[in-house]
């Protein structure tokens, strides 16, 4: 995969979606973004993601339900395993689907109700190999009750819930008396904890490695994510 770095070159993304209106809308958002994002429209042809210009795109925007009612987790897994950075863009709003996508290694999960402010941000983050947690996914993570979920600190859950509710990091920061930067760190830590449990995927191990390098989370804290002990930043 081409080693594009954000800031150096224009980000390229490829969108797979069977609805022409969605592709056209996302295209417009990408063109209006500053700096603009170069979007390749693969329509509903998954092959165009693997070959041609789509194969070199930094980010794959993936409609989970190309066939209505049958989310294609298999294709998502193949994309992630071959090192692609995937943003799932789905009509689905149920928590289990969102968490499964994250578990499979998608860097972002957005519902189609979430607009350009989230999608463009998610594409930029994914191009850097970083996760983006939109409010809907944040709500799913905060409400996650599955037995193998990582143990989150009370503060982390509070931040997730507030982000889901307010959809504004400024408001979350004001409500919890912390800085916007701290809000982002808490959300990033949750994603690292999720990346550290369950299936191994290339993007997920990259995520954990980078989080440790950047000091977002320590090895000791990672080992404690399934314990009762809670770490504070």
């Amino acid at each position, binding site marked *: 995969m081409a080693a594009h770095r954000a800031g150096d070159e224009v980000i390229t993304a490829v969108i797979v979606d069977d609805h022409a209106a969605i592709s056209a809308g996302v295209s417009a958002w990408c063109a209006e973004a500053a700096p603009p994002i170069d979007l390749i429209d693969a329509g509903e042809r998954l092959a165009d993601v693997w070959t041609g210009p789509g194969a070199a795109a930094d980010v794959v925007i993936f409609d989970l339900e190309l066939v209505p009612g049958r989310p294609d987790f298999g294709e998502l897994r193949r994309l992630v395993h071959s090192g692609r950075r995937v943003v799932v863009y789905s009509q689905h*709003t149920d*928590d289990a689907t969102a968490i499964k996508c994250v578990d499979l290694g998608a860097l972002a999960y957005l519902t189609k*109700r979430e607009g350009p402010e989230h999608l463009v941000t998610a594409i930029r983050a994914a191009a850097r190999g970083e996760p983006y947690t939109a*409010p*809907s996914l944040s*709500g*799913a993570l*905060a*409400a996650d009750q599955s037995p193998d979920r990582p143990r989150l600190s009370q503060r982390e859950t509070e931040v997730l*819930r507030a982000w*889901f*509710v*307010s*959809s*504004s990091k*400024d*408001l979350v920061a*004001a*409500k919890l008396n912390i800085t916007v930067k701290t809000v982002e760190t808490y959300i990033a830590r949750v994603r690292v904890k999720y990346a550290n449990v369950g299936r191994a995927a290339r993007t997920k191990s990259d995520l954990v490695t980078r989080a440790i390098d950047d000091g977002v989370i320590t090895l000791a804290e990672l080992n404690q994510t399934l314990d009762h002990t809670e770490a504070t930043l």
Partner: protein
Amino acid sequence: MTDAAGERTGAQLKRGLRIATLLVAVAIAGGLGGANLMRHWDVYEWPVAQVVALAMLAAVLACEAVLLVRRRPWNRLRWAAVAVVLAASALSYATLPDGRTSTTTDWIFGAANWAGFTVLLDRPLRTSAGFLAAHELVALLHLFLFDEPDRQALARFATGSVTVIGFPLCVAVGAAVLRGLSAAATTAQRELERVRVVEAVAAASHRRRQQRFTELSASTIPLLEGFADNSLRPDDPAVQRLCAIEAARMRRLFAETDTVADPLVHELRHCADVADRKGVEVELDTRGQWPTPPVAVRRDLTEPVLTVLATAASRARVTVVGSADLVSVSVVADSGEVDVPDPATPGVLVETLRNDETVWMEVRWQPTAPATR
């Protein structure tokens, strides 16, 4: 009285009639018939045949007694029993001396009719009538084939027939009437119950309507009075806001009686719809599961939402996050000044955060926690 009770009463009536009929049949066939048989023992050519006929009737009546004790109907055995009775009748007449039809020697004439009728008691009237006619026909055959009847014998046969056919038929008519009465009573009972339910429902909905009207009168009526006496101007933004709030309250009130899986979200949707109609873009999102709060708590949870929505300029986000022990309803909107009344129920907390043009109001309710702070 319920349907079950009605059926029980009907069954008791039928059982009583069955017992009475069996007792009559035993007394007449066993007592009267048996006594006549003994008294004329010497007259019969084959007294044993008469005893066998009596035993056949006795067997049928014994079966009826057993079934009665076990509270079972005759079912398929019924026609076999009728055949046995008719066979007994035929056997008795075949060995009856000539010229004795419908005399006291002809004991079976007044005995077999009761035995057969007992078996057919719960059948329609025409079945009993058919059997009695068959029994009568056997006697009549004997009269004409063997007796060379004179006027006196015919008169005797006619008067005998009145009791032989008439009495059981009277009981059969009685039974039919009883069945009809029982059915009519059940129908009447059902109708009475239906009317009572309708009345109760009407009374309850009247009470609810009055309650709702009382609730509205505190906030809506002053507004309407203000319009009536021109003290409130419809083009005043503050008045418009009050109207939007009242409209949302009414919508919520109407939605409260709907039967839905999640009343809280249902009511929030109705509140959001009012804002939606004036062009505010409202997102409604929920996460988690929560117990259904009582109406009073739901009003406290939705009141801040409808107040903020009434003043939202262009967009609003309404969310419910819940679990078994916490329900949190939030509204984030670009609203101006909002003034939310304090929650009426203890245990409901409202938090307001203002950031530039955006207001974030959160209402929390803890279902299991004691109502103290």
